[in-house]
């Protein structure tokens, strides 16, 4: 009797245990995807999905190079100027450029004529500028040399702000100008630039805006 009762209890407890287990199973089933529908592969191939992104493609938006030319410093003559530039091409139309340049200046006419009076020391006579500018490729195009060679080019307008260290002082400087970029290959460019560096100075008495014109040519590489 005792034995039968035990079996009875065991059966019921088993049944009670099975209810939640089975319901859980059916719930999990519902969450599983549909077994098979026409048009889908029966076996999903276990391929590693590799996303092709731009990281795999070499981007050449940066441009660095050096330049050499002439610069006129108002009242202080025209001399050789040299420097370096780096640019980042934001879109096909716009680029940001940072540049540094240096030139030595002559004596003013006053210093020459007075015979001996010197306004500046040799160190102060050296002009160093740096600036950050925004350029706009206003006329992009191609130039043709003979019938076999075509080169990409762009005429750009450029302007920005920076500092000019001259005559023992720093001057906040605005620069405006235009330039021409000729791409000799996909990654080497020849530049011809005209720039006006404008700053306020009281070096010769009155405080006035000085216009300092610069023309230079340079080579840059894209990377």
């Amino acid at each position: 009797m005792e034995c039968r009762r035990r079996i009875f209890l065991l059966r019921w407890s088993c049944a009670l245990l099975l209810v939640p287990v089975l319901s859980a199973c059916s719930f999990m089933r519902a969450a599983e995807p549909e077994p098979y529908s026409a048009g889908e592969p029966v076996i999903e191939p276990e391929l590693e999905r590799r996303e092709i992104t731009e990281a795999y493609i070499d981007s050449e938006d940066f441009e660095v190079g050096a330049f050499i030319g002439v610069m006129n410093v108002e009242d202080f003559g025209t001399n050789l100027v040299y420097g370096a530039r780096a640019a980042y091409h934001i879109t096909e139309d716009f680029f940001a450029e940072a540049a540094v340049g240096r030139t030595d200046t002559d004596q003013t006419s006053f210093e020459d004529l007075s015979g001996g009076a010197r306004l500046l020391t040799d160190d102060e006579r050296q002009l160093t500028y740096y600036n950050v500018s925004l350029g706009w490729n206003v006329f992009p195009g191609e130039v043709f040399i003979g019938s076999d060679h075509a080169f990409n080019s762009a005429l750009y307008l450029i302007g920005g702000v920076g500092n000019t260290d001259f005559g023992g002082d720093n001057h906040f400087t605005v620069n405006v100008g235009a330039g021409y970029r000729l791409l000799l290959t996909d990654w080497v460019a020849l530049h011809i630039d005209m720039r006006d560096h404008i700053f306020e100075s009281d070096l010769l008495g009155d405080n006035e805006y000085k216009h300092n014109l610069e023309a230079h040519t340079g080579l840059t590489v894209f990377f």
Partner: protein
Amino acid sequence: MRSLSLIMVLLSSLLCVAAQAADGLFVAVVAEPYLELRSGPGRGFPVFHVVDRGGEVEVVKRRTDWFLVRTARGKEGWVQRDDMAKTLTRSGRQAVFAEPGPGDFSRRRWEGGLMGGDFEGADVMSVYGAYAFTPNLFGELSVSQVFGDFSDSWLGMASLVAQPFPKWRLSPFFALGTGLIYTDPKSTLVDEDDRTDQVGSAGAGVRWYLTRRFILRAEYRRHVIFQNKDDNQEVDEWNAGVGFFF
């Protein structure tokens, strides 16, 4: 014998990888009726060649939104990003030529930029670089040049910047910093020595995600210059400028 074949398989797979690395260029398969190749990386350059559907091109490089591609016959031309996005990979998948977007802005690690503004009545220009420790907390270094009427100054600052809402397109931030200011009196006006003082500052500002990798940034800072004189000098600085992130 089994180990030998295993080595062979490993070697051949290594060779495959080496061959891929040597070649390296991504190959795109034309899926539209044709792909237009232009002579330069700009919208105005003429189309000089087309590749038909099913043709393959190697992607040599990218410049801004243009891709230099090489056809099987060795012709090279520039293709716009939107057209590249319609090509497929060799396995038939859509190639991804995504532009950086607002999501990249909130996940950025490095940021740099240039600002200009007013430093207690004088012109100021600054460059800065920032690194994100977390999306909410940045470390920032900046160098500013101040063009005053009577003196020029250089200001170098190290700051901690908190950005409570990194996912907002217009996102405010708060900064605490310390640094040094070097003051050089103008030679034509004042006969005073150069000096270097310590600076502490607090400020707030906003970043506005513009497009691609670019942001606009404006901020206000109040500096306290700890001078050797009796009084500390308090200076207001307002700045606005552009930044980029990567």
